[in-house]
């Protein structure tokens, strides 16, 4: 029934002095005289902004910050600068039917987002914005007045008043595998001390790093082959070789310039190529160009995992999260501290070889997404239910769990020797085997275990141990 609904498309004239009004397919668009009139009135489904690019950009920023229009389809009818392009949905399609089709598609995807829940948090809003536009990109825009030179206007606009560190947020979402980076647009270098990118590159003496260096051309006398700095040859108005006293009248036939070295006026060093030092304008820190922090500027789009998460439910509400919560989960710092403590205990009080006192088990659902895609939510939930049952059977009161990245689960098993670990692994795998699967696709578990302190490397602590085991899991 929803698809039959006709969207309310409004045409907002931004320059009241010259209201242009919709030209083509006028009937499809409802003209509105100003942006404030739109915001005060009932919510429109699609907005068309008409005005010069100077008026367009602030209007777009205002709309994207507004709770009603943050996610809406917004087109512009005239020309737009890069900032406006990053915020809007592009120029208005020639046919109003295309606008309606775009809105229907948008509407349909909105219904699918996060299992039907509208975004209520900033990060969900942004993921939703991208989800609603399959080709949507978070575009960086170059702005010389910005201290970072590049900024992401869409993220800033959707974040609204509660300002966030946009770059860190984007990196975090990238690490969570929700966003993926697009083509490299630019590369900036930042000071290692203050992270400023206002840097001055200066050529300096490689010996004393002094600034005062001069090019010192040398001449080569063709008669005797003498090579020396130019000033050695200058006699009055002419050039005379200090070695053979012949007149050097014409370049190319009497002499040439074989080399052009540099000389440092501070330490008198003679060198072929100057070194380049970078001096931070903000904090004065001197560093070599290799030391600088490199920042890549890329657009971001929804990754496949991100799309899946948007469809299946985000964060805490996802299927996997709900089931993992049944386990005795600890936060990462606590788990690492406990593991470090166990490592310290086994190292100090560890029994003779072969009788470890503690074990760590890591497990990963190898094909979780595949199963979810194939079996759909109900099938996967049934499988996870069975798996959790098995897990809860094997996990004792004293064991502790932690969720690592993505679909990895870590279990700390105190007072469990390596032999016990093997038994546990076996039980888990047989348990998994017995789980009924309706579609034939089975959950596959990858398991890795480590008995402490025997299988512990020298000087290994909790993060290093988990990193090593993680390598074996993938």
């Amino acid at each position, binding site marked *: 029934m929803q698809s039959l609904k006709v969207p309310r498309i409004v045409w907002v004239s931004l320059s009241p002095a010259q209201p242009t009004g919709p030209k083509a397919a006028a009937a499809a668009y409802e003209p509105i005289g100003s942006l404030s009139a739109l915001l005060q009135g009932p919510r429109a489904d699609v907005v068309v902004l008409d005005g010069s690019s100077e008026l367009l950009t602030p209007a777009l920023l205002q709309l994207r910050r507004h709770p009603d229009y943050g996610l809406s389809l917004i087109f512009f009818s005239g020309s737009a600068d890069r900032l406006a392009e990053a915020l809007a949905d592009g120029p208005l399609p020639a046919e109003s039917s295309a606008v309606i089709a775009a809105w229907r598609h948008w509407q349909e995807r909105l219904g699918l987002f996060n299992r039907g829940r509208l975004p209520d948090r900033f990060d969900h809003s942004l993921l939703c914005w991208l989800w609603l536009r399959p080709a949507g990109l978070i575009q960086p825009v170059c702005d010389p007045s910005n201290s970072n030179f590049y900024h992401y206007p869409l993220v800033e606009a959707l974040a609204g008043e509660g300002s966030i560190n946009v770059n860190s947020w984007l990196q975090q979402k990238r690490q969570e595998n929700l966003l993926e980076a697009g083509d490299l647009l630019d590369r900036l270098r930042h000071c290692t001390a203050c992270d400023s990118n206002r840097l001055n590159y200066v050529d300096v003496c490689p010996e004393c790093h002094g600034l005062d260096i001069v090019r010192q051309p040398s001449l080569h006398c063709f008669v005797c082959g003498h090579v020396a700095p130019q000033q050695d040859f200058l006699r009055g108005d002419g050039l005379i070789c200090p070695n053979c006293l012949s*007149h050097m*009248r014409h*370049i190319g036939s009497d002499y040439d310039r074989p080399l052009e070295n540099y000389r440092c006026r501070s330490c008198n060093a003679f060198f072929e190529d100057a070194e380049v030092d970078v001096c931070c304008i903000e904090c004065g820190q001197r560093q070599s160009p290799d030391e600088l922090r490199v920042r890549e500027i890329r657009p971001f789009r929804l990754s496949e995992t991100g799309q899946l998460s948007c469809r299946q439910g985000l964060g805490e509400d996802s299927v996997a999260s709900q089931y993992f919560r049944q386990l005795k989960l600890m936060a990462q710092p606590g788990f690492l501290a406990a593991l470090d403590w166990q490592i310290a205990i086994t190292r100090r009080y560890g029994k003779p070889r072969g009788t470890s006192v503690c074990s760590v088990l890591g497990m990963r659902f190898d094909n979780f997404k595949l199963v979810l895609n194939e079996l759909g939510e109900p099938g996967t939930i049934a499988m996870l239910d069975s798996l959790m049952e098995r897990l809860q059977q094997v996990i004792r009161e004293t064991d502790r769990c932690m969720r690592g990245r993505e679909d990895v689960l870590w279990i700390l098993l105190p007072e469990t020797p390596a032999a016990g670990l093997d038994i546990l692994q076996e039980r888990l795998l047989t348990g998994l085997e017995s789980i009924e699967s309706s579609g034939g696709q089975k959950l596959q578990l990858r398991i890795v275990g480590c008995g402490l302190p025997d299988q512990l490397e020298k000087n290994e602590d909790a993060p290093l141990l988990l990193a090593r085991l993680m390598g074996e899991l993938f």
Partner: protein
Amino acid sequence: MELALDSVLDLSGLIQQLQSENGAMRLFLLLFPFFILVELPLILVVLLGVLRWKLRELTLPPKHSLYRPRVSCVITCYSEGLDVQRTLLSLCEQTYPGEIELIPVVDGAAVNQRTLEAVRAFHLDPELYPRRRLRPIAKWKRGGRVSSLNAGLSMSSGRIIMALDGDTSFDNTMVSAVVRHFEDPNVPAVAGCLRVRNTWTSFATTIQAIEYLLSIQMAKIGLSEWNVVNNVSGAFGAFRRSILEQIGGWDTHSAEDLDLTLRIKSYFGRHRRMRIPFEPRAIGHTDAPSTILGLLQQRLRWDGDLLFLYARKHSGSISPELMGWPNFIMTVVGGLFVQVILPFIIVGYTAVSMIVLPWPTLVALAVLVYTLYFLVLLLQFLLMLLLVSERPGQDVRLLPVLPLFPLAMFLIRCWSAVAILNELLRRGHEESGMAPWWVLKSATRF
């Protein structure tokens, strides 16, 4: 006289004459009246001038001056291609401590793309050459050498303007040697010395190398001592900006260099202390035509232009009141007579001799004439090597070619007659390749 001449006209009479008392001297006087009346005094003027110059060079202490005006080098370029870069580099390399502004003017840049690209590709390293500025001008429409020079003049900012050719490179002391003269306010222009760069490319260029050494490097030193320099060469001349502005820059027509020299010399009668020095230490190396045909075409233009300028354009200004007596005499004798009239006398004499004289006499006379000219040439060449040449080791290698030089000069003199006739009858200067026809057509007719 007639009797004596008759007796010489057969070989036995010639031998008799030689055997009689003072016979050789009488025969000499009889056979070479123009040599004795015109050429010998000219040679003496030059040689005495050279000696005077050398004495001054050896005795005067070196002078150090703080006079360092900005020099603008207007380089007229046409189809030189990459050679322009040699010219520009040699100007960058000048040891002159003042500022030098390089203004290469590419004439007809729309068609001379290679030259234009060569100029654009030339990178002037400001660190290596801190007091040199490059300000190229692309003159898209072809307008001729004169328009290039005037365009360069209007865009330049130096107090000294040098008019240079794109195929001529310079010794690194050129600018400082030239600028010294301008410290004297009575100097409106300085003539530079040209040498042949492609000496050993062909016989034609070798002959021209000797010709340039004697008739430019040596002769102009001599003439300069008496302030009667005949011409400030178009390929290499320096001018005070004020005089160029006063006389309105270069004028259309070919031979704009001689035209400008004559116009400057027109002030000599009123300003007795004014002088145009020649600087033998300011040396430019230019490419001479490498084929006989190219040489003949060049001389057809040069010698024809002489008549046009002396007899047509400047007939009114060649007077002792305007030029002063020394320059008047030198222009009439050294310019008008030697360069315009003498070729006809030579051709006439030769033709008449060939008709009238029996072959043995003709040959004997020719040998006599040749011997005289060769001896004079040898003397000039040796003096040039000893007193003038700054590259004697290089120039002495021309000695083996010297015996052929009088013959080549004889032919070139004969060709001058053709060139002058071409100008006289066909107004040859109006078909000069130095400017397009639409420019020459509109120029004032003389």
